[in-house]
Structure formats: structure tokens, C-alpha cells
């Protein structure tokens, strides 16, 4: 029966990408001098499983390259080759090429053959160079390994093997079916009769299979028990000592230091600890994002229904309906918990973005001739997937800036009494309902006077005695940030306005603190999720609108004398010493106002796109968390409206996009 492999291909691509990430981060740690065997093992494993997968799907280019990687890594692991910067560079480069190959395989594009040949050549030349043992290994790497006369298999199941539904006897009998075998049983793990637990596996076997089958055939037999056993498969007659390195199947502890003579069974009992640790990671399942989103939608509906019930139940007599009301209270709590749990599903550790930076910083530092150390903290902090995807580009920009402009050249650093190697810190943490991401450097800091001079030159409005933070906010203005002169001197760059715009679009804010000669720290505050918003509900006539709480500066009652007109039509509201444009929300959205003589209108001062506007509303209804719904899925975009939400009584309320409203105001003017 033919098995349709195509449905496994997607999984292969996904897992390979993860494998590449593991390899990359592992290599970067190697580069920083962490020469831990377990670390190399992890890299090796990633390369190995990619090789296996690529082999089954017929991606020969990937198989070829990963094989070279394996050979090199194996030599590093066995201590036959020093871990040089050169080798790590080559390995990192091959990770890039593998990424390209994966992409090409996935989209069916042509493979960049020169790039592949170049990296293969580079790896081979490293394999060929230094170290006598390397030569045969390289030879083996280039040609596919010849099938040996047979295999020496050492198979020791972990005690819990039976619990996984596997039976070693079945595997052994299949092994026998491949050809003539001789078996040794290892009884050393057998406890005394009194202590014998019949549900545990205590035996181990050493099988000598005398049949010229491919290694993969033998490995396949054990594929169901990967991770549940200690397994070593070695060629029975090795053509050259180093040519056929022992390959660990799924279990790092199974691999000995270097290919040994066939008869030398790998003595690894005492190395079992890491194997146990490796089995510990939490299990997880892959779920399509659309399924999670559907779940979140359903819970959103449940929350709305629950709010409706609650509103209705408020009218009931608490004495007569005590049980019903208790039940509703319980429902309230459960719904809230459920909502929180479901939102948690979409949360991902911020490490998904952070993990790409070590590589980027390393490359950038190399290019600029600087020495940079990247310190990351709080990688485990969780954030909504949507936010994570959108925060990535701004962070890349900020870190590039920090390396490029923030940090000085090594000589300058020494001259100013600093350590040659500059430090960039990247941290994430929860603060209240927000996540705070900080990008800091210990470089030269911002030049306040230059920014101020530049801003004056451009005629930007500024307070009389601008505070540091006022001044630093100038670099987020488009006119200033694009000015090359300031960029080079102040050390902050092109496109900071774009960074700020992206952050603000996410409902976040960005701040700078800097001290000359000591460095700069940029703080980004973001909401935990895009799906829920803290809003202030305001009423105009019969309609209710939601103003995002983040943009609300204050709200106040309008007194008669506070409104001035300009040219008879434009209205300004006097707020203390400022005059703000006053915009009637009712007029802007074409809502009929019910005349209310008894109450004075209320102005909500909002800030969007750097300008302040007063919105005239009839009433403040309250503050609440609202679930953001898209208006565009069934309708189209409306200027000044960012989305809609459903109120407790089931009605729809529009969420106001203050930036859009004020832009509309500016265009109309």
C-alpha cells in the first residue's frame, strides 16, 4: 500500500524550520564559548532529523548538505576538531543555505545551485583541513556511505517501554527477518526476583545482523521506540575508523565519544541523566491558528451572552430567584476564567522575536567592526501572537539603530574609559495589563543640544523649557528623523517615525531615556492582546461609541464661555491655557442629537497622531473592556472607525479611531 507522503510534508517543513532555529541559537552559544557536549548534540540532532525527513521526501540537496553538517558536528562533538570561529561561521552560513533550500523545496522554486556548491565546498574544505582523522571523514561525507557487511545493534529499552505499547520482541523478530543474526541478552539491568516489576523492561540486547541492508532499514525498525530506548547502530565492519560515525537515533546519550571499533559496545549507562532530562519537556500539539481564532470568537460570543443575562437578571427579585442568581454569578466567574484561558492559547513567548536578534547583532557587529554583546532577559514573557508578529519589525529597527549608531567603535569606547565590547540589552516583562519591552545600549547616548537645534531649525513647536523626554520625542517626528546629519551625530535613525507609528497602531507607546556618554534606553509598552481593548463608552444621542482608553487624556464638562469660534464656524475649546479644536462626535458620525437641556455637553480630550482634539459627547457611560470585532469582514473600512464591539445588551457600538478622526479633521481644514 502506498502511503501518501504529501500530507506529512507540511509538518516536515515546519519542524525543519524549528530545527534550523535550534541549530542557529545553538551555534551562537557555541560561538560565545559554551562548548557543552549536550549543546552540540542538540545541533546534531536537529541536523540529523532534517536529514532523515529530507531523505524520505526526496529533497536530495538538503540531505547532502545536512550530511556534511553532521560529519563536521560529529567531529566537534568527539573533540577531534576544535570549535573555531571559522567553522561556526561556515555552519551558520549553511543554516542560511538550508533555509533557502527549504523555501525552494516548499515553493517548488529553483535551488540556488552556486550557493549550495559554495557552502558544500566550504564545509568540505574545513573537513579536509586540520586534523588527520578528518580526511577519511570528508571522503565519506562526499560519497554516500557504502553498505557494510552488517550491523551491530545495541538496544536497551527504558523501563517504561511497555507502557508505550511497544514490545521489544516484535522489533527483534523483525530484525531477525532481515538476515542471520546472533543475539546477546544483557541481564545486568535485571533486579532481584523480589524487586522485579513485571510491567517494566529490564533487559537489553546486542544483535549482530549479518545482512547488507541500509542503515535506514535498521533504524526504521526502531522508529516507534525512539526516545524510549538507548540505541546504538554501528556497522559491523567499518571501512575506515572515522568514516562511519555512530549515529544516535533520537537519544543523545546513546552516542559515544567518536566512532569506536565495532565490538566495543558503547558504555553509556552512566550517561542516562541527560536522556531523562530530554524526555521531560512539556508535550504540545500543533493546532491551526484558524481553529484557535474560531474558539476565541465563540468564547467572545459566550461573554456577550453572559453579559446580556447578567443585565436581564438585575431586574429580578433577589429573594425569589436566589438560586438562579447564584447560578448566574457562577456563570460569570466561569466565563471570565474560560476567556482568560482561551486568550492564553494565542499567547506566545516573546522569544519568538528575540531569538532572531543574536544572529542579527553578530552579523551587524561583524560588518561594522564593532564588538557587541547582546543580553536578553524575559524571553518567556507571553504576548498575543498578533502583537508578536507586528512588533518584530520595529524591534529590528531599534536594535539595528542601537548597534549602528548607539554603540561607539571599540577605540572610542576605550578612549572614553568603557569596555571595548558594547552591550545591548533586550528585555521583556509584564507590568499591569501591559508588556514592556526595553532596548538599551551603553553607547554614546543622544545629543540633546543637536536635536534641539535641529528641531528649532525646522521650526517645530516646543515648550519654553523642554524636558529631556520632550526633546527626545522629536526624533520620532518624520522631518527630523530623516535628516542625515542629525542621524549620524545623535545616533538615532531613519524611520523612527515609522517605528512609533507601528507601536501606536498596536495601541502601545514608546519612550526614550538617554544620558550622554552612558547610553540610551527605549521603552515600548504594548497591550497584551489586540482582541480586547480598554475603552471608555460615551453616548451621543441614542448611540454609544467606544473611545480607546489609551488615547483619552481627560474629560471635562464644557462651560458656556469655554467655546470660542474661529471665522464663525471652527470651534475651539479653552482647556486651561490651551485652545483645542472641538469636534462634535454627533456631527462627525451623523448622529441625531436628542436635545438635552438639563445636562451640559462633555468634552473628552483625546490625543491621536500627536495632536490633541476635544470630542464633544452627550454623556460618559462608563469604562469597560470590549472585544474588538472587525467591521471590514462584512463591510468596508470607515474613516474614523477602527472596529466595532458588542455591548452588554447585544447592540453594536463603533470603536473610534482617533488618529483617523483627527486626520479627517486635518484634511478638511
Amino acid at each position, binding site marked *: 500500500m502506498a502511503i501518501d507522503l504529501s500530507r506529512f510534508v507540511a509538518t516536515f517543513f515546519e519542524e525543519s524550520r524549528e530545527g534550523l532555529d535550534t541549530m542557529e541559537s545553538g551555534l551562537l552559544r557555541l560561538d560565545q564559548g559554551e562548548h557543552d557536549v549536550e549543546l552540540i548534540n542538540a545541533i546534531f540532532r536537529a541536523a540529523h532529523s532534517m536529514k532523515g525527513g529530507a531523505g524520505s521526501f526526496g529533497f536530495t540537496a538538503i540531505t547532502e548538505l545536512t550530511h556534511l553538517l553532521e560529519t563536521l558536528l560529529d567531529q566537534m562533538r568527539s573533540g577531534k576538531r576544535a570549535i573555531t570561529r571559522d567553522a561556526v561561521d561556515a555552519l551558520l552560513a549553511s543554516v542560511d543555505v538550508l533555509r533557502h533550500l527549504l523555501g525552494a523545496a516548499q515553493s517548488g522554486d529553483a535551488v540556488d545551485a552556486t550557493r549550495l556548491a559554495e557552502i558544500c565546498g566550504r564545509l568540505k574544505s574545513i573537513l579536509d583541513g586540520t586534523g588527520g582523522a578528518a580526511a577519511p571523514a570528508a571522503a565519506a561525507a562526499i560519497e554516500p556511505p557504502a553498505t557494510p557487511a552488517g550491523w551491530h545493534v545495541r538496544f536497551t529499552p527504558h523501563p517504561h517501554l511497555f507502557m508505550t505499547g511497544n514490545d521489544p520482541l516484535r522489533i527483534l523478530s523483525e530484525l531477525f527477518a532481515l538476515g542471520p543474526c546472533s543475539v546477546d541478552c544483557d541481564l545486568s539491568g535485571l533486579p532481584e526476583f523480589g524487586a522485579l516489576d513485571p510491567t517494566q523492561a529490564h533487559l537489553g540486547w546486542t544483535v549482530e545482523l549479518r545482512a547488507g541492508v541500509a542503515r535506514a532499514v535498521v533504524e526504521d525498525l526502531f522508529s516507534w521506540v525512539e526516545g524510549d530506548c538507548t540505541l546504538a547502530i554501528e556497522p559491523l565492519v567499518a571501512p575506515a575508523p572515522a568514516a562511519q560515525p555512530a549515529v544516535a537515533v533520537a537519544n543523545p546519550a546513546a552516542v559515544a565519544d567518536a566512532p569506536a571499533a565495532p565490538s566495543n559496545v558503547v558504555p553509556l549507562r552512566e550517561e542516562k541523566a541527560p536522556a531523562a532530562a530530554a524526555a521531560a519537556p512539556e508535550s504540545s500539539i500543533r493546532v491551526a491558528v484558524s481553529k484557535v481564532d474560531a474558539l476565541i470568537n465563540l468564547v467572545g460570543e459566550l461573554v*456577550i451572552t453572559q453579559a446580556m443575562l447578567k443585565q436581564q437578571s438585575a431586574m429580578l427579585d433577589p429573594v425569589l430567584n436566589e438560586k438562579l442568581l447564584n447560578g448566574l454569578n457562577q456563570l460569570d466567574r466561569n466565563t471570565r476564567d474560560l476567556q482568560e484561558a482561551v486568550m492564553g492559547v494565542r499567547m506566545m513567548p516573546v522569544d519568538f522575536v528575540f531569538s532572531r536578534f543574536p544572529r542579527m547583532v553578530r552579523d551587524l557587529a561583524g560588518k561594522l567592526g564593532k564588538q557587541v554583546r547582546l543580553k536578553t532577559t524575559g524571553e518567556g514573557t507571553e504576548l498575543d501572537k498578533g502583537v508578536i508578529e507586528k512588533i518584530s519589525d520595529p524591534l529590528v529597527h531599534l536594535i539595528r539603530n542601537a548597534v549602528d549608531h548607539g554603540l561607539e567603535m571599540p577605540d572610542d569606547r576605550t578612549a572614553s574609559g568603557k569596555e571595548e565590547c558594547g552591550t545591548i540589552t533586550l528585555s521583556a516583562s509584564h507590568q499591569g495589563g501591559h508588556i514592556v519591552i526595553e532596548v538599551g545600549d551603553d553607547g554614546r547616548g543622544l545629543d540633546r543640544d543637536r536635536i534641539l537645534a535641529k528641531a528649532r531649525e525646522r521650526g517645530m513647536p516646543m515648550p519654553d523649557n523642554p524636558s529631556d523626554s520632550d526633546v527626545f520625542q522629536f526624533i520620532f517626528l518624520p522631518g527630523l528623523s530623516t535628516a542625515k546629519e542629525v542621524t549620524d551625530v545623535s545616533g538615532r535613525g531613519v524611520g523612527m517615525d515609522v517605528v512609533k507609528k507601528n507601536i501606536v497602531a498596536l495601541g502601545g507607546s514608546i519612550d526614550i531615556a538617554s544620558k550622554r556618554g552612558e547610553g540610551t534606553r527605549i521603552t515600548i509598552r504594548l497591550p497584551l492582546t489586540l482582541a480586547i481593548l480598554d475603552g471608555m463608552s460615551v453616548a451621543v444621542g441614542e448611540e454609544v461609541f467606544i473611545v480607546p482608553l489609551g488615547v483619552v487624556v481627560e474629560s471635562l464638562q464644557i462651560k458656556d464661555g469655554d467655546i470660542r469660534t474661529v471665522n464663525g464656524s471652527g470651534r475651539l475649546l479653552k482647556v486651561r491655557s490651551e485652545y483645542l479644536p472641538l469636534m462634535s462626535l454627533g456631527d462627525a*458620525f451623523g448622529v441625531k442629537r436628542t436635545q438635552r437641556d438639563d445636562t451640559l455637553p462633555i468634552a473628552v480630550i483625546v490625543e491621536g497622531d500627536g495632536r490633541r482634539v476635544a470630542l464633544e459627547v452627550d454623556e460618559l457611560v462608563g469604562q469597560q473592556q470590549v472585544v474588538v470585532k472587525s467591521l471590514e469582514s*462584512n*463591510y468596508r473600512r470607515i474613516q474614523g472607525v477602527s472596529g466595532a464591539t458588542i455591548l452588554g445588551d447585544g447592540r453594536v457600538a463603533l470603536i473610534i479611531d482617533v488618529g483617523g478622526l483627527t486626520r479627517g479633521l486635518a484634511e478638511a481644514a
Partner: protein
Amino acid sequence: MHVQTTPAAGSAAAILAATDAREFLTFTLGSEEYGVDILKVQEIRGYDTVTRLPDAPHYIKGVINLRGTIVPVIDLRLKFNLGEAAYDASTVMIVLNVDKRVVSVVVDSVSDVTALKGDQLRPAPEFGSAMDTRFITGIGAVEERMLILLDIEKLMTSAEMGLVAAQAAQ
């Protein structure tokens, strides 16, 4: 069975001839009777209060909450210039699935579901430039009743409807 003689491609007659009979949900707007393909209909609901949308054409009444989804509401009487009818107990909304969107139309009342065979079908009338018949696929004759069959998908996704962004309509 009626034998169709090379009907114009794409006309309702051609579609009907191909599928033998199809069912239409019929509804009234003023004194006229209309029909839409039943397969486009998701559900029928009573009229609910809508939330008005700023900057929308007069026939888009606003949006409603349909079990968590925000659905725009179109008053077909206003769209077809049939005068503004009062909203009363029999006023209903037909929730339609067109082009992966959910929209809801307000009609005076829903009549029934009628199966139309090829021989009950007449081509869309020609009024010259006096009237726009682009969204009419044909006329269905059921005994004494005359059904105006609407191409609801074309109508809802047309740029002039203002339901979709201009570039998305094409």
C-alpha cells in the same frame, strides 16, 4: 419536459435548464414580488435595532450583531426606490451569504420558497435606458404571480452598493 433551445450563456434560463429546477426564496417589496436563490440565504430574522454607520448611503441602515458577527443591514426598498415603508411586525431581515460575506437585507415580508422549472422562466425584460436591469436575471412565472429574480451576489458586490471597498469590488 421542456427542451431549451440554446439559451444565452449565463442567463438564469441556462442555469435552470442545466439543473432542471431550482428553489427561490420569494419576498415582497411594496407591491412587487422578488426571488433570490435559496442557496444564498443563511437565515431569516425579525427586524432588530441597528447601529447606524457614519458616511454610509441612505439604504445601508447600519449594522447588527448576529451572534457575534457584525453584519451590515441594507433596506432593499430604499435601494430600489420603492419608497420608505414603515417598520412593523412583519418586517423581516433575510441574512444572505454572498461572496464569503454575510449581509442582511430588509424586506416587507417573506412569502415562501418556490421551485421554478425552465419553462416557468422568462428572460429579463428590456427597458432600454429607462431602467437598470443589470441585477435581474429573469422573471419567474408561477400561475398568476410574477417573480423578479435577483442576482443578489452581483448586486451586493457591485461598487455602487458601497458595501465593499471600491478596489475589492472588481
